[in-house]
């Protein structure tokens, strides 16, 4: 088996695909920050630990997406240095894993509080962030980070499914659909990273973006619930 390919070989994109991908990241990042803001705002009413986790997790996700998109755009237009491009992606991947872990911890905390999760399962989720794997090359970072993201998102989707099946609430359904699409997107991206397929990676990004769009619809509809 040969040497793993470098990140440069793994992420060669056409200019237009790159712009579309960056735009999707900007919108997704904006949606994530909106979710974080509303979780923070309602936490001021409720003083709820799960809400704090959700707010912080979505903030990490949003900031990560916006930073990555901004740096990609800047480096593509001004510096044209692939190293900056790759490093921005690396930082984002780490933030992404941390963000999903914090969100999963928020769900686990609430599920444990309501008694729908066993103490063992909850404690496994609440143990804390694992030490990041030793990374030698960006390719390994990408694969590891994407794989961790998919696993953590699977836990989040499981929790969201429990919430939806218990409540049969349309808002819970929207959140479940959003997270499901984000997880699916991450899984497709993981496949794209492993086999170095740019189209698969882009399809994964698009699917993840659809997940954030569903979360935006959730925010708009729940916002309109203020009326009687």
């Amino acid at each position, binding site marked *: 088996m040969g040497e793993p390919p470098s990140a440069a070989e793994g992420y060669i994109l056409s200019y237009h695909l790159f712009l579309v991908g960056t735009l999707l990241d900007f919108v997704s990042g904006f949606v994530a920050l909106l979710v974080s803001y*509303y*979780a923070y705002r*309602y936490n001021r*009413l*409720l003083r*709820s630990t*799960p*809400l704090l986790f*959700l707010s912080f997790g979505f903030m990490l996700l949003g900031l990560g997406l916006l930073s990555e998109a901004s740096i990609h755009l800047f480096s593509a237009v001004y510096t044209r240095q692939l190293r900056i491009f790759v490093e921005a992606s690396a930082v984002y991947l780490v933030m992404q894993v941390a963000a999903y872990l914090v969100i999963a911890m*928020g*769900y686990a905390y*609430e*599920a*444990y*509080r*309501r008694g729908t999760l066993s103490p063992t399962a909850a404690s496994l989720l609440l143990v804390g962030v694992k030490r990041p794997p030793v990374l030698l090359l960006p390719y390994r970072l990408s694969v590891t980070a994407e794989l961790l993201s998919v696993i953590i998102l699977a836990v989040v989707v499981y*929790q*969201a499914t*429990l*919430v939806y099946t*218990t*409540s049969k*609430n349309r*808002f*819970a359904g*929207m*959140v479940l659909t959003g997270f499901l699409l984000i997880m699916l997107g991450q899984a497709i991206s993981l496949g794209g990273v492993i086999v170095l397929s740019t189209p698969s990676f882009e399809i994964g990004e698009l699917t993840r973006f659809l997940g954030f769009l569903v979360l935006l619809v*959730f*925010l708009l*509809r*729940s*916002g309109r*619930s*203020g*009326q*009687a």
Partner: protein
Amino acid sequence: MGKPEGVRSKLRIYLDILRVIEEEGEAIPTHILYKANLSHDRLTSYVGDLEQRGLIVQVTRGESRAYTLTPEGRKFLKELRRAEAFLSGFGISL
């Protein structure tokens, strides 16, 4: 850890009281008591809280007293409803 499912939080009780008052326009204490499912002592305590915060105001309805929402009360009720919808998406109760 946490409260049992059947126990309502303070915010949930506020929401229930404010909803009743909004539905009726001007709600007498007895109606609030039954529709919000409260004991007399709790009703007195929570209604007093809401009045003190300027969210509801007492009005005279013939010989009896009733409560109606203030503009701040309507705003707060709207915010609680939005919060309830948002939180329900994540399985968190008010």
